[in-house]
């Protein structure tokens, strides 16, 4: 069976790749596309380490077929910083040490960014529920939640 040819947009840039019909988007990102920021933790949609957005909707790339990217807008952790300039969430995660081993961090950042786009003023409870699908075995979550809340606050001030 011939491979499928997929034309898509990744982080705002046109991209093309070949995939098997049963390859996941995570397979395509980490394989032919060479974008290894998205991590494979569980491969079953439980851990959130492979989080991306598809047409601005937060999804697990391990639960999406690569072929589904045809004609869609995909955003990954690689598109979060503007060149050398980190996204405010990335900067705050560093400042507040909201990570340890780092495996969950790309997914945490992509999911948090999706939250703040939808809700610039989340409560602590809203942050915790939103990130319930992102597992972290190092931090105990507290520093991550505080970093997201602090970023939200600073982004609101900057927008004024």
């Amino acid at each position, binding site marked *: 069976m011939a491979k499928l040819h997929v034309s898509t947009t990744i982080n705002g840039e046109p991209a093309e790749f070949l995939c098997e019909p*049963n390859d996941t988007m995570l397979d395509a990102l980490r394989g032919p596309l060479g974008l290894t920021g998205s991590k494979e933790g569980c491969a079953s949609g439980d851990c*959130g380490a492979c989080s991306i957005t598809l047409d601005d909707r*937060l*999804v697990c790339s391990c639960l*999406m*077929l690569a*072929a589904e990217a*045809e004609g869609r807008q995909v955003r990954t952790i690689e598109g979060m910083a503007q060149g050398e300039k980190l996204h405010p969430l990335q900067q705050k995660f560093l400042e507040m040490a909201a990570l340890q081993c780092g495996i969950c961090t790309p997914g945490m950042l992509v999911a948090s960014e999706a939250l703040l786009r939808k809700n610039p003023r989340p409560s602590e409870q809203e942050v915790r529920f*939103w990130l319930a699908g*992102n597992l972290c075995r190092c931090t105990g979550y507290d520093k991550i939640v505080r970093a997201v809340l602090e970023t939200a606050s600073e982004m609101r001030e900057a927008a004024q």
Partner: protein
Amino acid sequence: MTDIRYLAPRTLDEAISAFAAAGSAARIMAGGTDLLVQMRSGAVRPGLIVDIKKIAEMTAIEETADGGFRVGAAVSGAELAEHPRFGKVWPGVLEAVNLIGSKQVQGRASAGGNLCNASPAGDSVPAMVAAGAVVTVHGPDGRREMPVEKVPAGPGRANLRSGEILVSFTLPPRPPGSGDAYLRMIPRTEMDIAVVGCGVSLTLVGGVCTAARVGLGAVAPTVLLVEEAAKPLIGSKFDDAAVSAAATACSAACRPIDDKRGTSAYRTKIVGVLLKRTVAIAVRRAGGN
């Protein structure tokens, strides 16, 4: 090498002919949150995957002329939550759909997939049963409708004929004084599978219950419509005796298994507790006390 094919047709007719032609080796994919996990584990090895999300009818949410709703089988939980009216009319159905998985899973998972995956513990199903939803299925022999509670046949099995695809759910018009709710028992607050699930939909006139439906999950091989639990509620003002009789009827309807999530005895007991709590929420939403 794989000999698997992926199709994303734009019309239902294309989807049905491809699905029917491929026979038992084919799988329908809505959000894929169950299918891709089953493929990954080797439990399912489809020869053909038919992605139904490019078919307009499958992804639409419409208010029907009589004031009901038609929800496409592939509408994601996130899309349903963003609809301006659906959650106001059917808060119990919405909360049940939105309990499935994380935000990431909600971006993909659908009520249609949840129903056809036919887990006895699927969260959206008891709420849809309570709501009196009717599903439309379309196959090589045309279109038919059936009550949602007729779809599950057993764990992992649905009462769909060869080549048939679940197209949409139709929820009936809502009389004034109606409310619905869904609660599930899990040992944590998020991201878990129901030990027991309970959906209730009620209509009140002057504080008296005029209509009630109860759906139960994870207490039998399929989700159950429990008419015996609705009977003591109808005509009552939700006094303790009526609600206790409904709870007892729920326990009597249970045919649960022992598994890692709970014992049969625990499920049978807790289902009555859950019924009482769910009724209280539905009554409050219906404008009772």
